[in-house]
């Protein structure tokens, strides 16, 4: 999340955390540029009114550098002319300030879902169903309680159903930058998920990582 107003950044980060996302924040474009080039993100929330260089200029750079991460733009400049300029420079969606947090969350979910090529909002894999809107998981229709980290691991694997996901990729996805991360804890979460959802739910592909669902 790239937002220069500290209070708004804190509130947004808290809301995104509550919704089950791991969030890194940057208060300016330079920091964001560094993070975007060093980490793998599922989405970027970008405020356009950044100090120094305009957010759209950074976005344009990222797109020309081949960075395809979905970008949700937050902006005070919400005229249609400005929206067209933003979309043409690589924005994927827009939320105008002031906004309701539900709107930001809904747009973000849509972007992440589209980027991973899922057409229906609810994710399904065997007997496991995951609803990203409510963060609810069911097994054969019965609700299953998961911790935040377990949910993130499951959600990531289900979004990338049929593909092998490495431990490192999972670790980067479930922890915020700078938090204490150890890749063997991913094994712990996977083991707990298997206990709750059935041993066959998540397959270990030796030496490569984990996979849910059949290989495409």
């Amino acid at each position, binding site marked *: 999340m790239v937002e220069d107003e500290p*209070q708004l950044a804190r509130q947004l980060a808290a809301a995104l955390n509550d919704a089950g996302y791991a969030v890194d924040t940057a208060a300016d474009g330079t920091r964001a540029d560094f993070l975007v080039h060093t980490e793998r993100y599922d989405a970027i929330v970008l405020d356009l009114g950044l100090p120094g260089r305009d957010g759209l200029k950074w976005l344009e750079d990222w797109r020309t550098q081949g960075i395809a991460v979905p970008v949700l733009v937050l902006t005070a400049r919400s*005229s249609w*002319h400005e*929206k067209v300029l933003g979309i043409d420079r690589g924005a994927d969606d827009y939320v105008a300030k*002031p*906004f309701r947090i539900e709107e930001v969350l809904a747009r973000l979910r849509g972007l992440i879902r*589209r980027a991973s090529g899922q057409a229906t909002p609810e994710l399904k894999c065997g007997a496991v169903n995951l609803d990203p809107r409510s963060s609810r998981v069911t097994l054969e229709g019965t609700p299953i309680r998961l911790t935040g980290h377990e949910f993130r691991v499951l959600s990531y694997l289900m979004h990338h159903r049929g593909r092998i996901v490495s431990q490192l990729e999972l670790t980067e996805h479930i922890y915020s930058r700078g938090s204490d991360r150890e890749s063997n804890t991913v094994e712990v979460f996977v083991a707990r998920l298997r206990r709750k959802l059935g041993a066959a739910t998540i397959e270990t592909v030796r030496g490569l990582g984990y996979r849910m669902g059949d290989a495409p």
Partner: protein
Amino acid sequence: MAGLWYVRRGLSPVAQLRTRLAAVHTGAERRVAGSYPAEVQPLVDDLNELLDHQEKTVQRAVGKAGDLAHGLKTPLALLAQEAESAARMGNPALAESITQQVDRMRRQIDHHLAHARAAASGAMPGARTSVLKSAEGLVRTMQQLHADKRLTIDCTVDRDHAVRAHRHDLDEMLGNLLDNACKWAATRVRVESSATPAAIVILVDDDGPGIAETLREAVLQRGVRADEAAPGSGFGLAIVRDLAELYGGRIALDKSGLGGLQARLQLPRAT
């Protein structure tokens, strides 16, 4: 050709100046063009300098109005977030009241900013915008913003159709109409243009539920929504109407051949 040349030549410098000045006034030309006898030329130069000065002043004023409007949006966003925390901490009445006021302020800002821009456009003659350019950019944008709906958006706009309006304002009018159509459409949206000698007519159609005839006039009024559950502010169509009228055009709603709503935007044609 020869005939035209004789007519031109036959005009006195003062008559020529008046013709050119009238063209500036109607917006057909941005500056007083042509060459004039030595005793008239300084006057023409002065006039053009005055037009330059006026254009810069107006642009500065619009820039300031924009800065003011956008500067208010971030504090408003903070206030909206505070309202949401109040709701979580068990004070939904306070939250609702703050949210309503934030929403009102945002509408006021958007409304007056759009007006300031349009009024400034009136003060800066010579506006000319290609309908196709505006429509193509907006269709790309709508495809992206309404990606989940997988709509088919047809754009049949003549390359030569241009209106006497600034790009920013045409984008605002057409953007609101297209966005509204995309929100309500089931599968299809269509934008097309036609021309009369003095006007360009842009039609935006959708295959959604449409708006009952008795409500069509009401949704063009400021602050009225056809359906309170509709996404967006409901303010969009009223802004389209205000902008269209400022440019001497008009907007009307009708039943679409596609089954939903047809919006008909008419604007003065630019040559």
